[in-house]
């Protein structure tokens, strides 16, 4: 009798563990929300993947305005049901700092913030300057190869995170031009065109800015404004369509995610990936494995937190795109083919040079400057003028 | 219903054109405009539709012309029941109406206005064709208007002709005219009546809405009288006496008046009549060489000079639209004068705004009480302080309103001026026209003014209310106030004024005592005939 009871009890417990998800994670997105094909989507992707892998239930929470950040965190934390709340974006920093103090038993993780201390918070920051340098070098050298005079970056609103990108890109271009000179013997004149559009959402402005740059001989457009990249890519595609060209410059350089597959992989040659998904996955994994360690994790090339897109990234993101219904499975081979053909238009030695730069950064022989304040970015701009008077 | 006034449907048997049967109209606000009105229209007749304001004349014709649906009752023709969902259907049937406020698009020319009411919406406009037809029609009817000028630039009489032409061009068999003579000079009225007779003889039926007994007797074949929404009389013009018509129309004897409805100099009560001291009082308002432009930029007031003295009523008569409104607006600060002098007790008022002018002791009874005189959604109390709301009496520290005192003041006004309302908080729009005007007059007279500028003070009022307001003006005059009375109602001016001027195209044709000229002479002056030719 007694034994029967125990068996029943064990059975029920076992069943409940197996039947229900073991726990819950929540991801809080900032007002930009999902659909940027970049930052926020990456946060969602990583958490989603982790939730699937560890059999967790995932909840996604949007914020309509800045007034929703803290209340959303409180609403989630008050339930006490969530093993981890991931906050995606620096805009959520202050809110998280407050929520983490109010709910000391609730574990949090935050992306792009490095200043929140507390036993229940993991901060993740990225060294975006590192992979931006690779993109910059690629852009500068391929511009020189194809006889283009400029390379362009379209950025969103002027904020510190974006300065990281700009600083890295400037350094990378400078490095690439020097590498080109070393290889070809002449110093090419490739200038930088950059613009802070002041918006992350009006994609028509992204297109207009890209068109202006392309008209001024830009070899490609590096998108550092999330959704605006859609407009950038459209501008690039339009130039090709009009000229009747398939591959080659102008190129589109994606951001945050591997965006090379966009537009059937025709013009996206490489993306400066910021693996927000990796960070989110790491955070969930740490909670599940009981290795949650508060503090700041800085992710760079070495940690795989940032990277320039490669073949395996392309495969991963095509699979993810198919899963999310953005890519038809039948199109996948064509996308990969296009992408490879497009990459062939850049000389092999240039790819090697980019790899060299990556190696240099990885073994700390090359230092990529960054900028987090107005003064710092001014210094970088003064050092790497790239055609500015 | 009285046997004498039984429908004079002698010709009922030989085919009527249109019959309205038991028409009742209740507006959405609950006003009953018509009760069980039955009316028959025959071919080739001019029917006068007589009644006071609010008697239901316009409502009845709006129903006949398809602008309003009746609440109950029906309209029939010999072929059966007719229902007009819109004025277009009525027009197609052959019924056209010329409204008191012309249904003309101001920015369109006469040709375009006429072309508007013709078929085939998606065709190219053939203005040349429309023009040709219109010219033919002008020849036929003897009505002449300029065809290529935006109608808002035309004189009122011309606009009316455009309106009539527009309706005629649709080939109507029943023409309805709503108070067509109120904007015309006596000469123009004669011309219009000639035209109407010609149209009748050519086979058109005509309904003429009016409240003027003499007109209705001079031109119609049959007169239908409405009172408070009920059809109270239907008589042949030849058998109707003025007295009988007036009685039907008013339904009661007007206090102080025997039978006549129309005022005339002889019939106005003489009680406390013209002050002998009148013109010897000090000059309150002095105007010299005043020039002002109208809304369209034309000169509307063309070098007027006059004085209004304490203890007199200075009347300005004339057909509307001859600069009277602009003159009043200049004197009350609502319009800037181009040049000239206007002073009140020696203080210049030109260029001052209404508030400053009121401070000099001016009261203003405006011509349009809905547009100017009242804020209709406001309560009685709020309206009763319009213009005096900044008085110390009503305005406490920090510009707080002293509602207690205001309400007390309003109650006094309601008592003194017999304003019928549920209380100080009744919305002004819930008041009847007469009570609204009493409210305005009361408010203005309560200012204890040195001069009252009264513009069309009795327009649209029933006889009782009109008389009440006229008596008030006389009383104010007797108390030594100066009164400037502007009225399109010649009888009113003749009856009240100590001195009068006839205004025509921005100038005074004459300035005289009311007894100096007879009505015919005045009529000619109002029509622009020079005085030396008249006398």
């Amino acid at each position, binding site marked *: 009798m007694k034994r029967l009871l125990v068996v029943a009890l064990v059975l029920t417990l076992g069943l409940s563990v197996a039947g229900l998800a073991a726990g819950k994670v929540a991801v809080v997105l900032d007002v930009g929300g999902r659909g940027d094909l970049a930052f926020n989507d990456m946060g969602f992707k990583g958490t989603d993947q982790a939730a699937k892998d560890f059999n967790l239930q995932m909840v996604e929470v949007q914020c*309509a305005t*800045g007034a929703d950040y803290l209340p959303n965190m409180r609403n989630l934390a008050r339930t006490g049901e969530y093993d981890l709340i991931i906050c995606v974006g620096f805009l959520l920093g202050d809110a998280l700092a407050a929520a983490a103090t109010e709910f000391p038993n609730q574990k949090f993780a935050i992306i792009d913030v490095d200043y929140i201390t507390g036993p229940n918070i993991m901060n993740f920051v990225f060294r975006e300057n590192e992979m931006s340098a690779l993109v910059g070098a690629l852009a500068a050298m391929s511009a020189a190869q194809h006889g283009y005079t400029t390379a362009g970056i379209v950025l969103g*609103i002027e*904020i510190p995170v974006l300065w990281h990108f700009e600083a890295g890109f400037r350094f990378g271009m400078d490095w690439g031009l020097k590498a080109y000179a070393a290889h070809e013997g002449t110093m090419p004149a490739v200038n930088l065109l950059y613009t802070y559009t002041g918006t992350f959402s009006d994609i028509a402005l992204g297109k207009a800015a890209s068109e202006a740059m392309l008209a001024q001989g830009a070899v490609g457009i590096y998108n550092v404004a999330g959704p605006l990249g859609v407009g950038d890519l459209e501008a690039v595609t339009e130039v090709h369509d009009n000229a009747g060209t398939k591959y080659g410059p102008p190129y589109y350089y994606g951001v945050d995610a591997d965006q090379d597959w966009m537009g059937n992989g025709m013009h996206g040659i490489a993306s400066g990936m910021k693996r927000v998904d990796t960070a989110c996955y790491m955070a969930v994994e740490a909670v599940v494995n009981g290795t949650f360690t508060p503090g700041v994790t800085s992710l760079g090339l070495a940690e795989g937190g940032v990277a320039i897109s490669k073949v395996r990234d392309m495969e991963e993101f095509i699979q993810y795109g198919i899963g999310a219904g953005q890519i038809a499975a039948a199109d996948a081979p064509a996308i990969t083919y296009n992408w490879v053909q497009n990459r062939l238009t850049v000389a092999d030695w240039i790819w090697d040079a980019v790899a060299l730069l990556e190696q240099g950064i990885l073994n700390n022989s090359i230092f990529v400057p960054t900028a987090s304040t107005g003064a710092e970015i001014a210094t970088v701009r003064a050092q790497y003028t790239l055609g500015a008077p | 219903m009285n046997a004498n006034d039984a429908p004079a449907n002698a010709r009922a048997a030989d085919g009527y054109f249109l019959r309205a049967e038991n028409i009742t109209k209740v507006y959405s606000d609950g006003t009953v405009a018509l009760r069980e009105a039955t009316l028959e229209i025959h071919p080739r007749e001019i029917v006068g539709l007589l009644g006071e304001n609010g008697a239901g004349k316009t409502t009845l014709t709006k129903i006949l012309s398809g602008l309003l649906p009746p609440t109950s009752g029906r309209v029939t023709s010999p072929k059966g029941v007719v229902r007009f969902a819109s004025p277009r259907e009525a027009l197609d049937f052959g019924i056209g109406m010329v409204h008191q406020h012309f249904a003309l698009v101001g920015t369109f020319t006469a040709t375009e206005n006429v072309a508007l009411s013709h078929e085939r919406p998606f065709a190219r406009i053939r203005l040349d064709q429309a023009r040709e037809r219109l010219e033919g029609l002008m020849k036929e009817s003897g009505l002449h208007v300029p065809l290529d000028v935006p109608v808002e630039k035309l004189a009122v009489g011309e606009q009316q002709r455009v309106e009539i032409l527009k309706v005629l061009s649709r080939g109507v068999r029943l023409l309805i005219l709503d108070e067509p003579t109120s904007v015309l000079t006596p000469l123009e009225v004669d011309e219009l009546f000639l035209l109407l007779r010609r149209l009748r003889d050519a086979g058109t039926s005509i309904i003429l809405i009016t409240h003027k007994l003499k007109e209705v007797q001079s031109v119609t074949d049959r007169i239908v009288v409405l009172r408070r929404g009920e059809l109270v009389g239907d008589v042949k013009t030849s058998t109707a006496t003025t007295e009988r018509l007036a009685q039907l129309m008013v339904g009661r004897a007007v206090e102080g008046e025997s039978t006549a409805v129309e005022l005339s100099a002889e019939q106005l009560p003489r009680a406390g009549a013209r002050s002998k001291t009148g013109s010897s009082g000090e000059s309150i308002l002095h105007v010299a060489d005043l020039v002002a432009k109208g809304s369209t930029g034309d000169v509307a007031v063309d070098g007027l000079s006059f004085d209004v003295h304490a203890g007199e009523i200075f009347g300005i008569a004339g057909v509307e639209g001859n600069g009277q409104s602009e003159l009043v607006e200049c004197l009350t600060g*609502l319009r800037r004068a181009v040049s000239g002098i206007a002073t009140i007790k020696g203080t210049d008022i030109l260029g001052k705004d209404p508030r400053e002018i009121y401070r000099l002791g001016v009261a*203003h009874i405006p011509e349009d009480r809905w547009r*100017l005189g009242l804020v209709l959604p406001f309560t009685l109390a709020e309206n009763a302080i319009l213009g005096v709301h900044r008085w110390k009496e009503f305005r406490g520290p920090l510009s707080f*309103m002293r509602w207690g005192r205001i309400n007390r003041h309003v109650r006094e006004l309601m008592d003194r001026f017999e304003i019928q309302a549920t209380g100080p908080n009744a919305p002004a729009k819930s008041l009847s026209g007469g009570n609204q005007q009493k409210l305005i007059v009361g408010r203005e007279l309560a200012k204890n003014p040195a001069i009252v500028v009264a513009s069309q003070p009795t327009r649209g009022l029933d006889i009782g209310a009109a008389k009440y307001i006229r008596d008030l003006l006389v009383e104010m005059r007797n108390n030594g106030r100066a009164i400037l009375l502007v009225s399109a109602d010649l009888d009113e001016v003749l009856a009240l004024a100590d001195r009068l001027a006839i205004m025509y195209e921005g100038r005074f044709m004459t300035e005289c005592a009311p007894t100096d000229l007879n009505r015919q002479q005045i009529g000619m002056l109002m029509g622009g005939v020079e005085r030396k030719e008249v006398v």
Partner: protein
Amino acid sequence: MSEQAGPTQSRLLRGVHRTVTGLHPALESMLAALIGLLVGAALMYMWGFNPWKAYWALLRGAYGGSYEWASTLARATPLILTALTFSVCVRAGMFNIGAEGQMFMGAMAAICVALFKMPPGIHLIVGLLFALIAGAAWSIVPAVLKITRGVSEVISTIMFNWIARWLALYIAIFILVDPSRAEKTLTIPVSARFPILVRGTDFSYSFFLAIFAALVLYFVLWHTTMGYEVRAAGLNPTAARYGGIRNKRTMIVSFLLGGITAGLAGATVVMGMPPSYAAFGGGAFPELTNIGFDGMAVAMVGRNHPIGIIVASVLFGGLNAGGRVMQFYGSNPVPLEMVRIVMGAIVLAMSIPELIRLVPAIKSQGERLIATLRRHGRPASKEGSA
């Protein structure tokens, strides 16, 4: 018989009519809210959500307890103020779409107090003064353009919203920027913040500022000559001019009052909303964006009456606060965007005057039919009596 019944009956009817018209505005607003919720429910149902569960979550998240009420009122606070902006100008007969821009300017001005050190309280008051002056200054230009150049205030305030956005971005990124965290402006010091009223929520004393502003505006509009003039000019500008009211002045006054409340709205966000007490230029002001536009919706549902606005803000604050909960409630939660759909539908319904008449329209049609039938029967009896 009907002669006797007539007056009594009509008096009774009039009495009923008065009572109903007295309640009309409130009833119609409630009906509009109901229609909005129904439209939302229909869409949710169409897309495979369970509207009842969603609304239940929303209701609980908005009004389920003291924490929820505090969140709702906190969310309502700036909406009250921007709603006042819109409504005071509507009362003056103008459509001021510019609350958004005026609020941005107010917020930027309020942040300026971070540059000074002052005693608590005074510091806060100085911040509010800055904000209301900036809001008023930003609103005065469209008013002046309207008076001098005849530029429609609808157009100019929309343009000014955009200009304000860019100007505020410039100020936030280059002038008032926090040197250590460039994505945001300087933080309002504790001495200039509205203290939190309910611990653990966003509900701060700024709510009372909003209520106070609503009451002040109520008294200004209905109990001062200035407000009297504003309302008169709004309802009938010609009559107002006739009454010695300077319409240009009332325009300026209403825009100033509107600018002041909008400026204060900006201040309540940066001075009263934890935890940042700053504006984020780096996110294009997520904490401020749309408060001005949502305020217009609140004003309409509140019938442009300060007291009505307070009530309506509880509805809209609740929709927003409850919407947060709705999006993670249950197994198939409804995204936050649904709240805005509901808000839009409510405003659409509000634009139909006499909304309440649409409901009994069928009933009245029937009544009319009966009345017509009865009247058709009557002439016979009349003939009989004659």
